[in-house]
């Protein structure tokens, strides 16, 4: 059965979705990603949807699940590359993807993840200093 490839980039995981996924494949991706985040102690997940010309509520829910799962595992998720037509349709559909960070492309997404990590590190330092 096909699986969506997950790449490791430094402390982050990059998933590039390039096929029109059937629901089963989307669910396997969710599981695979969770397993990989745990195994690699990834601090961030980048989901590249620039190849998707349709995102429906099922995929929307998958993205939400990935973000929620990652957060529990102390990793941030950024969804990148959403096409204008898809964004316009999602707004019309009423899907807002709450709690999911987005960026225009992989580079910007990585920047966001690194900035988030840097802020976190400063926060931890402050905590220690405060003690």
């Amino acid at each position, binding site marked *: 059965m096909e699986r969506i490839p997950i790449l490791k980039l430094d402390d982050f995981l990059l998933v590039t979705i390039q096929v*029109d*996924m*059937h*629901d*089963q*494949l989307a669910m396997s991706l969710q599981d695979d990603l969770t397993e990989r985040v745990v195994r690699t102690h990834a601090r961030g997940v980048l989901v590249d949807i620039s190849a998707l*010309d*349709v*995102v*429906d*509520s*099922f995929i*929307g*829910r998958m993205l939400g699940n990935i973000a929620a799962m990652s957060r529990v595992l102390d990793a941030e998720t950024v969804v990148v590359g959403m096409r*204008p*037509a*898809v964004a*316009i*349709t999602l707004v*019309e*559909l*009423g*899907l807002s993807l709450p709690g999911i960070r987005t960026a225009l492309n992989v580079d910007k997404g990585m920047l966001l993840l690194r900035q988030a990590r840097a802020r976190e590190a400063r926060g931890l330092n402050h905590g220690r200093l405060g003690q």
Partner: protein
Amino acid sequence: MAASGSETLPIRSDSEVVTVRQRVRTWAAQQGFSLVDQTKIITAASELARNVLVHGGGGTARIEALNNGSRVGLKLTFEDQGPGIPDISLAMRDGYTTRGGLGLGLSGAKRLSNEFDIVSKVGEGTCVSITRWK
């Protein structure tokens, strides 16, 4: 040049939902829909096809090209012989879901279309049709 005719597809599995999306894309492109309009109707089709599979126990999708003189459009009809929907207005409410979904399937599909119609009888099945005009 706008096509005429129709096509009926079975919805019995995940991959057949994908096929519905692909065929709707082809028909919408043939009818000359803009990219945004194509995306809207394919997304609506995806929601409704999934409903047929998940709630209706399987069924069919019919794609019809509409060419009434000056108006060009696409009509999609989703039918199943499933349990039916007891309270349609409740089902049409945003966020209402019986299977842990986002509850946007029916209401979303309606928002993405120019015309929307639903007929459902408990114990007999459901028929949803949507139309998008160019």
